[in-house]
């Protein structure tokens, strides 16, 4: 069974006769453990598709099944719970909390779970070590480079042991070597931990690292 089953999904922005179609009639299957890239030019619907997969939007038409459950029928509370337990995000703009240290940013997402302190501490340090910035744990984001901040964001995504990580242009704000290093880090984590990664990009060198690339154009899957 696929991790995600997307069937005939459409999504529009706006309303009252001024609706703009962002996705139209999209079908997609994503297997567990896959390292999947979504490619396409700006405005092709990459972010919208990731938001739908991350349960941030509800499709206007069609169904999205996560582990066989139709996510479009879930209430807000259940979607929040699924996001907390199964899905993690890495954003292009990082979105770290500036007043927290790297350690606290990563630990924060564990606080909603009733984990013993020692376990929480171990997992946080493991996540930071896995992305190679354990020595930066006490630094706040503004005292770190863009690449280091992105690694904190990745550690934040990994620490919860989720089954899928959605990354919206995770390397767009980074220079080429740092971007490649980050994508190879994601690839390694995908291979070592079996986490499903779905990321968007339009950089051919980044896309080359993916197991599979889905191309979007004008809100439709082109190939």
């Amino acid at each position: 069974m696929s991790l995600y089953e997307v069937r005939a999904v459409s999504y529009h922005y706006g309303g009252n006769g001024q609706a703009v179609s962002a996705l139209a009639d999209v079908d997609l299957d994503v297997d567990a453990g896959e390292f999947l890239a979504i490619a396409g030019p700006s405005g092709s619907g990459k972010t919208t598709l990731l938001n739908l997969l991350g349960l941030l939007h509800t499709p206007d038409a069609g169904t999205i099944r996560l582990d066989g459950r139709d996510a479009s029928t879930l209430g807000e509370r259940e979607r929040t719970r699924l996001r907390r337990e199964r899905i993690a995000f890495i954003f292009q703009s990082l979105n770290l909390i500036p007043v927290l240290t790297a350690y606290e940013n990563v630990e924060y997402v564990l606080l909603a779970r009733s984990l013993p302190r020692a376990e929480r501490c171990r997992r946080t340090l493991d996540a930071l070590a896995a992305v190679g910035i354990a020595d930066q744990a006490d630094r706040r984001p503004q005292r770190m480079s863009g690449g280091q901040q992105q690694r904190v964001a990745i550690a934040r995504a990994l620490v919860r042991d989720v089954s899928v990580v959605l990354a919206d242009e995770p390397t767009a704000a980074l220079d080429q070597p740092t971007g490649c290093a980050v994508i190879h880090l994601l690839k390694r984590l995908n291979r070592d931990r079996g986490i499903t990664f779905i990321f968007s990009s339009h950089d051919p060198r980044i896309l080359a690292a993916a197991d599979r690339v889905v191309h979007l154009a004008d809100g439709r899957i082109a190939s």
Partner: protein
Amino acid sequence: MRRAVLLLTMSLRNVFRNRRRSLFALATIAMGALGLFVFMGFNRGLMNQYRANTIRARWGHGHLYVQGYRDRAHARPSEHWIERPSAVMAQLRGLPDVLDLFPRLTVSAILVAGEHTVGGNGEGIDGAAEAGFFTQLNYRDGGDFRDRGDGIVLGEGLARGLGVRLDDEIRLVVQGGEPSPHSAALRVTGIFHTGSQEFDSRAFRIPLGVAQSLLATDRVESIAVALTGVEAWPAFAKAVQASFPGLEAVPFDELDRIYYRHAVDWLDAQFAFIRGIILLVVFLGIFNVISMAVLERTREIGTLRANGDSRVAIAFGHVLEAVVLAVLGAAIGLTAGWALSAGPLRDGIAMPPAPGITRSFRIQIELAIADGAQVLGLAVLTAVVGCLLPVWRAVRMPIAEALRHV
């Protein structure tokens, strides 16, 4: 627990995130707290001084009457006065917190001085005993008649009406007793002012013995009570009720309902209005600051929600931040208020004569821990209410929209 600690840490650090804005917020709250705290201290000082003035000028902490005497008019009032007052007072002195007791008798009389005749309402009092307690009866000329048997003191308005000065003779004519009328010749030993023009234009005081003689009675109408403090009254009244079922204990604010109680109610209403304005200013300041802070962090809120934080958890974090801001601001304001009252305002604030009052006075700023706690509570409440609307708006924004927010 760790979540609460981290939220509190975040809140504290967020306070210093945008220093200029936080400074503005802290200044708004601190100024509001300072204003409110000092204002409450001023209010308390004014009320306490007014109360002390009322007690020490005329009423004592209360009066004792024969049970039911005040409830209706009597054809022969003297029959309802307190019998054997000396014996009753000797027993009353055994009750807790009693400082002193003063027998009194109301006298309505016509005062004649030369060609002037004026009606007045006076009291027969134990001059020697009362001189020690009733210190707020301010004498413009002369002083108490103390143990002088033919002395009389007059309100300054009454003295003016009669055209008398110190040592002038006045004839007091009283309708009462048998045969009627009775009269007595008395000599002016003092001219006083209480602060109330209406009272001073009709009031006089004469020795209790003279009053009893004029009214042909050995009873007293009431016994004024001086206690160790206002707070001792309820226990005293209870003890009187238990030990002297024939007597009724009436507190000073009930006796002076027209002036004291109404003045207190009037001032309270005025102060509540001003307090409301101060709170509104603080509320608008906090609302503005929190709205800006929330707007600035919309993308952060979107991130937290995308990572599975509930709306309530995020709103709680922001409310906590508002509480931290309010507590810090209020602490600064309260400290400044205390420093102000202990420093520049140590000697109080000079006030002009109030309506109906003939002398100016100084109001001490009387700060109280209870007032400080109330100010802190109001600051926190205002901050929480002020942050709820912007925070609620932010957490209800669609997550994807919040993540795109610039």
